[in-house]
């Protein structure tokens, strides 16, 4: 009826005052009725009428009725019908849309202004959140829509208000389990806008089992083949995980990554409906956010391991090689594969072994590179392949070496057909500048932080045609650099050279001994008509030739180059050219993220790794080209010092080896000494003990012996004395007999003496 009335008005013109109540008057009267009526039925009717008028007379209802409507939410809280009308009316007033029937089309932000007024009273938001607990459809649904409208206008404030109202987020989460699909789906949309950019809400939503709920909804809607609700679920998942390490950890720990794998299985039947493509795209976004290069390395690598282990990387590789995949999905899949293997050795090895189902079978990497150097492929896909290849080589010394191997003579004969190396070298000569650029940048990544491949590529020879003598790759690049007109090709070549020369004196030597190379670079740096970036990069390459110069090329020794730069370009100007690069828009863009992105072909100028190199070596180059006076002296002698230092290093190493040897020996000897000392002491003790024992025993024996001797001697003496007495008696007898016989007897004394002598002898014995 109201619609009819307003239609009439627009046809007949505004009614004359006094004739008929104007819309504004009606609204005013209805508001008064809500405020003053004592009967619930009257208030309900008035609310219903206000709801009906709230589109046409949005301004009036909003401006005059806001407070009344808010109050009504409290006053008649138990009457769900009234509350339903009230919420509907508020929904219209706060809506971000502009209604057709709206009478005074205000500015676009009418809804925004009313939202601002509405949320100024924070209890209003709490009130609406409480309405969510009401099961009645015509209360719960408008409450969800009202919150969505508020979020559309004032996301940040409403997020904070939801956080501060008790269990606000929990109430919203319960809506995902509502059996009425309209409410569940609108709640999904509400949660998507509620979680955007607010880590605290994201965490609470995750805590409230959001991932479980979402996987349930996705499964019930038929997985990736399901409708837009599946996409919404995945978008919410993405919101919850993006740049939120805590939720990512929760997702990983809750084994949710494993639930993503089966979803990637090929679709049920014929091909790719638009919605399946959108769902798949959203799914790939979800898994990419788990392994984003910006995440903490530890978290990323844990997710990468799980993704390989659960077969997700395998499924991704399969869908990469499947036919009929829409271009944007394919592009996103390539990027996903890239990030799942970036810097993760096992995953890189896994992917290097994936074969494309072509005839003859080729490695998937080669097939991808073929589309990169094919100018007919979409730009986004080519960029994605470059990114994938870069991620494959990122911190992958084996992969880098393998690429170099495919270019070395020994193996090229064995491996017939296309290899990644030959594709890229071929790309250098392509007439398409973007192919040149892609090939240069891809090749340069085989050199990043890898002294081995820098040396290997120096040995690579290219034969421009059958039978021609080969030309080495580096001089070939320099020749291309001098021939090329277009900046994109030249920038590609200069970046390749820069990666090559950095920390590699051999490469610098090769460049300096190539005729015209230095002259060309110097000329470009001086040429005002050249592109800023080309001049800057040329200067940087020249600077690298100074910084990593080992004075092997006599005519372009370090000092000679410094003087040349100073004379021809001027040191200040030279450094300004290098600094120009870092101030360039392209530099800021490329340095920000490892993934190369471009809206148009011309946007691709600088590579992320190159920007990192430039940042790291800018100062090194500056110091090499403009040394302080005392440094000049040092530099002149630095080669000698280097030799000296190397010798001293060797000496030092030798001496320390000797020292350690001697130390070991000494320790050994010291041990021996102490052992011997212990032995000696032991022996000495033993000895003295034995000696003591021996002394005691000997003396006793000797005493006994001597006593025996003495006893024997005494006995002998006794015998002798007896014998002597006998003899004396005999003598006396014989003497007497002789006397008697008249014989002259010898001197008595003589006999006496003889006897005395005998006696003495006996005594002595």
């Amino acid at each position, binding site marked *: 009826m109201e619609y009819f009335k307003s239609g009439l008005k627009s046809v007949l013109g505004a009614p004359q005052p006094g004739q008929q109540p104007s819309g504004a008057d009606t609204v005013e009267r209805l508001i008064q009725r809500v405020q003053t009526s004592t009967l619930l039925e009257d208030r309900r009717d008035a609310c219903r009428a206000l709801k009906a008028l709230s589109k046409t007379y949005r301004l009036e209802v909003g401006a005059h009725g806001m407070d009344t409507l808010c109050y009504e939410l409290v006053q008649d809280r138990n009457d769900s019908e009234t509350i339903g009308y009230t919420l509907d009316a508020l929904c219209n007033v706060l809506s971000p849309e502009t209604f057709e029937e709206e009478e005074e089309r205000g500015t676009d932000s009418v809804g925004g202004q009313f939202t601002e007024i509405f949320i100024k009273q924070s209890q209003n938001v709490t009130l609406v959140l409480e309405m969510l*607990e009401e099961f009645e459809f015509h209360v719960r649904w408008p409450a969800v829509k009202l919150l969505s409208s508020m979020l559309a206008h004032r996301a940040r404030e409403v997020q904070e208000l939801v*956080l*501060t109202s008790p269990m606000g987020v929990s109430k919203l989460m319960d809506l995902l389990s509502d059996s009425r699909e309209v409410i569940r789906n609108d709640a999904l949309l509400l949660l998507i806008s509620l979680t955007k950019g607010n880590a*605290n809400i994201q965490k609470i939503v995750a805590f409230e089992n959001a991932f479980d709920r979402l996987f*349930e909804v996705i499964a019930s809607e038929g997985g990736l083949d399901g409708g837009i609700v599946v996409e919404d679920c995945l978008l919410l998942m993405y919101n919850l995980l993006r740049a939120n390490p805590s939720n990512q950890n*929760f997702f990983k*720990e809750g084994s949710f990554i494993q639930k993503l794998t089966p979803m990637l299985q090929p679709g049920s039947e014929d091909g790719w409906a638009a919605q399946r493509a959108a769902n798949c795209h959203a799914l790939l976004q979800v898994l990419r956010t788990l392994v984003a290069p910006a995440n903490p390395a530890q978290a990323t690598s844990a997710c990468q391991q799980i993704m390989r282990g659960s077969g997700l990387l395998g499924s991704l590789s399969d869908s990469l090689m499947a036919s009929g995949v829409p271009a944007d999905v394919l592009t996103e899949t390539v990027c996903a594969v890239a990030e799942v293997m970036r810097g993760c050795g096992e995953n890189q090895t896994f992917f290097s072994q994936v074969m494309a189902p072509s005839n003859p079978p080729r490695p998937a990497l080669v097939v991808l590179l073929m589309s990169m150097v094919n100018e007919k492929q979409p730009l986004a896909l080519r960029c994605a392949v470059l990114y994938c290849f870069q991620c494959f080589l990122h911190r992958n010394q084996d992969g880098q070496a393998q690429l170099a191997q495919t270019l070395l003579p020994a193996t090229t004969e064995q491996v017939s057909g296309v290899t990644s190396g030959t594709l890229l070298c071929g790309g250098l000569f392509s007439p398409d500048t973007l192919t040149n650029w892609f090939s240069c940048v891809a090749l340069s990544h085989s050199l990043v932080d890898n002294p081995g491949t820098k040396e290997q590529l120096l040995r690579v020879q290219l034969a421009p045609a059958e039978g021609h003598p080969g030309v080495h790759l580096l001089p070939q690049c320099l020749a291309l650099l001098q021939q090329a007109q277009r900046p994109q090709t030249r920038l590609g070549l200069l970046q390749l050279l820069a990666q090559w020369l950095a920390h590699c004196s051999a490469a610098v030597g090769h460049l300096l001994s190539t005729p015209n190379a230095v002259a060309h670079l110097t000329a470009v740096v001086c040429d005002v008509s050249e592109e800023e970036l080309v001049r800057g990069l040329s200067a940087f390459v020249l600077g690298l030739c100074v910084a990593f110069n080992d004075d092997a090329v006599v005519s372009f020794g370090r000092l000679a180059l410094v003087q040349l730069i100073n004379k021809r370009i001027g040191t200040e100007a030279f450094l300004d050219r290098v600094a120009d690069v870092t101030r360039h828009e392209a530099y800021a863009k490329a340095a920000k993220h490892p993934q190369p992105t471009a809206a148009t072909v011309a946007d691709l100028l600088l590579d992320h790794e190159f920007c990192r190199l430039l940042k790291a070596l800018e100062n090194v180059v500056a110091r090499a080209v403009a040394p302080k006076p005392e440094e000049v002296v040092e530099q002149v002698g630095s080669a000698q010092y280097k030799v000296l230092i190397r010798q001293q290093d060797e000496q030092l190493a030798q001496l320390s080896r000797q020292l350690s040897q001697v130390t070991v020996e000494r320790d050994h000897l010291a041990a021996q000494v102490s052992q011997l000392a212990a032995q000696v002491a032991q022996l000495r003790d033993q000895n003295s003990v034995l000696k003591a024992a021996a002394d005691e025993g000997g003396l006793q024996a000797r005493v006994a012996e001597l006593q025996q001797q003495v006893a024997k001697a005494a006995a002998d003496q006794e015998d002798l004395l007896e014998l002597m007495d006998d003899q004396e008696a005999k003598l006396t007898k014989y003497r007497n007999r002789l006397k008697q016989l008249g014989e002259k007897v010898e001197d008595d004394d003589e006999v006496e003496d003889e006897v005395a002598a005998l006696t003495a002898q006996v005594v002595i014995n």
Partner: protein
Amino acid sequence: MSYAYLFKYIIIGDTGVGKSCLLLQFTDKRFQPVHDLTIGVEFGARMITIDGKQIKLQIWDTAGQEAFRSITRSYYRGAAGALLVYDITRRDTFNHLTTWLEDARQHSNSNMVIMLIGNKSDLEGRREVKREEGEAFAREHGLIFMETSAKTAANVEEAFINTAKEVYEKIQEGVFDINNEANGIKIGPQHSPTNPSLPSGGQGGMQGGGCC
């Protein structure tokens, strides 16, 4: 990776009592003397074994600062266990326990197991709260009590595991309704009864959502 049960925990208590350090010690077995202030909530997880069953603990470490109180309150409802932590060297953190407990009891489900933890037991010399006081408080409010040191790892394992044991016992006694995920308990994928997900049972749970 598979588990019989999954329990959700929260760690609450004043700022600076060592909540994040307790979690780090439990999940990573390391101690960080200087720890950034927790903003909002941080997540950690670990597997333990009770009664021969694998149990996954998902732990939300909350910010102790008053400013985050309304955020951290959102985590009470869905948790099966809570570690309420104070610092034995700071009496005020002990004095605030009543407020914390009221908050927890008001917002959580009534069966939530609460473990009272006096942390920093390695700093005996600076002790301000006696062990007996902690014990008395726990007895009075029906909590389990333990003194821990996140620095030396003393009792840290025990604190988390004993809480889990208590939850586990309550499940065995049938106190927890394990099919209602709002209790902070989930049955492992292969341990669920006949149908693993209960999509149609959501409505009842949703209506009774405001059970606390």
